[in-house]
């Protein structure tokens, strides 16, 4: 089933980590195999924040194979040496969990493709997000468990999207969890509720064009599909509109960039979405109770129609 939620504050910042946790926790009955956050925090915009993993969570119903922590240590060392080779200076490094790390990096080049390919050439290493504002945090368990584990409650920012996952078409692991980073674009993330039925056809075509897939989760296709459109010069909104015909199946998905948040709904409107929109806040989720977790007072909400694409700026 899966549940998605997102919010964007316009003209101000807020505790988006705490707010999104409440929204996703309200949707936990839609799936709690894993939960993921894409948080756009307040930063000075100088350095990149790289969230990456050097292994999988092997507890909590995981389908992953257990590895010794020394393997993680070894992978981290290689990452550090590769960063050094590429001229990326580590300003701050945090090892949140044995397999999950957060680096602040000083890196001048704009093209992240070569950078990402180099880092991910290390077996078992995956960049969860790369951006100057975006941080993707995803792990097994429900929203509160992940929020507590990664101390996300106090993160202040402008917007965020998240996903509560019921694993259906791929494993219970972090690599299949949402959100997906719009590799190799800085600060682009995607969450999705639904099923894509032309996944393999699209995947083969995109891989032939040099795009990268890290999982076998059909939702990852949306991030890669949009990234490819943007690589070819399309705006985010143009890419999203093209996706309504380019992607087959049933879907509602959210995309976020450094300064915007968008939603798209398939032409059959088969997946739910409730939306609240005011001058200073847009909040949306698979069910109204997600929005109610941050806006308990009486508000006007609506369901976007079939084939609708909307984008909001901060």
């Amino acid at each position, binding site marked *: 089933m899966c549940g998605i939620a997102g919010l964007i504050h316009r003209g101000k910042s807020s505790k988006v980590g705490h707010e999104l946790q409440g929204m996703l926790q309200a949707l936990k009955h839609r799936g709690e195999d894993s939960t993921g956050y894409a948080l756009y925090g307040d930063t000075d915009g100088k350095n990149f924040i790289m969230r990456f993993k050097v292994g999988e969570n092997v507890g909590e119903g995981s389908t992953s194979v257990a590895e010794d922590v020394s393997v993680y240590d070894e992978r981290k060392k290689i990452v550090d040496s590769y960063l050094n080779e590429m001229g990326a200076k580590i300003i701050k490094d945090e090892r949140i969990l044995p397999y999950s790390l957060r680096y602040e990096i000083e890196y001048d080049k704009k093209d992240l493709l070569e950078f990402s390919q180099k880092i991910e050439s290390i077996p078992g290493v995956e960049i969860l997000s790369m951006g100057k504002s975006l941080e993707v945090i995803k792990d097994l368990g429900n929203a509160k468990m992940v929020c507590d584990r990664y101390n996300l409650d106090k993160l202040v920012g402008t917007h965020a999207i998240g996903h509560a996952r019921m694993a259906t078409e791929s494993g219970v692991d972090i690599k299949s969890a949402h959100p997906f980073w719009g590799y190799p674009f800085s600060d682009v993330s995607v969450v999705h509720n639904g099923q894509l039925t032309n996944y393999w056809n699209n995947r083969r075509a995109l891989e032939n064009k040099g795009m990268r897939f890290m999982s076998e989760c059909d939702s990852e296709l949306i991030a890669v599909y949009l990234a490819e459109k943007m690589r070819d010069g399309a705006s985010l909104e143009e890419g999203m509109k093209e996706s309504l015909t380019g992607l087959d199946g049933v879907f509602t998905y959210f995309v976020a960039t450094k300064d915007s948040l968008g939603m798209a709904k398939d032409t*059959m*409107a*088969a997946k*739910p979405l409730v939306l609240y929109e005011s001058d200073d806040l847009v909040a949306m989720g698979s*069910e*109204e*109770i997600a929005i109610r977790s941050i806006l308990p007072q009486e508000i006007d909400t*609506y*369901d976007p*129609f079939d084939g609708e694409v909307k984008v909001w700026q901060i």
Partner: protein
Amino acid sequence: MANIKSASKKTKAQAMGMHTEVLTGRTQQKFFNPDEAENFYYFGTHDVDFNKRTDLDVKDMTAAEANKEIDNLMGQGYGTIVIKNPQGKHSLGVGILNKLNLIFEGSLGYFGMGSCDGPIVRINGRVGWSCAENLMAGKVVIEKNAGSCFGAAIRGGDLICKGSVGARTGIDMKGGTIIIGGDAGAFTGFMMQRGRIIILGDVGINLGDSMYDGTIFVGGEIGSYGSDAVDAELTRSDQDWLKRKLKVAEIGENFDVSKMKKIVAGKKLWNYDNLEPTEKKGAI
């Protein structure tokens, strides 16, 4: 193959080989007699007084607790119940088989007022997916918007949304009336079998797709027609009925019904008994 064209209606099923046994015994059909309506009650329903009114705050209740409390209050004879702080909870007010005046001060989540028979309900907010699914009788009025599958499979009663509704409104409906003050999404009236849908605003793609029967009236633009949905003449009788219905529904009383479009089933998809196999393909 049996010649079903020449078979009488009574023996058509036998001619097609659907069944051969001779049916015996008493009929299972039960016919409703309006004269005996006052004596007709479901098991476990209550005699309530509409003038006996109370409030119920469900803020800290689960849906099951709230629904049980509504039942308890009806058991105490309350005929008018005002629900405070529903806050988008799912499955509120389901399974009420009773006369009742029920008012929600706020919005409902999914499956609100599902499987009800008889209550008069006003929701001063929005409703999520599948509101009033399987409604048998009564009236449900939503002051704001509604989600998808609004009035799915209703058998009777009036279901009114003053705002806009999502996709698949009236899917599989078998009776009753659905009235929409605003716009409606894709696949409105999908596979409807009986009843009427009135939409004052625009409606999305595939209107009335694969409808068996029933009627859809649209005041605004139509995205596209679904399979076997066709235009029909809007008669004077239709217009009179629409005016009456919109007035009773407190919605669009001054709406110019003479310009509404009437959509019905072309009956080429399901009425295969009258078609040769090649004709069936053409119809599809």
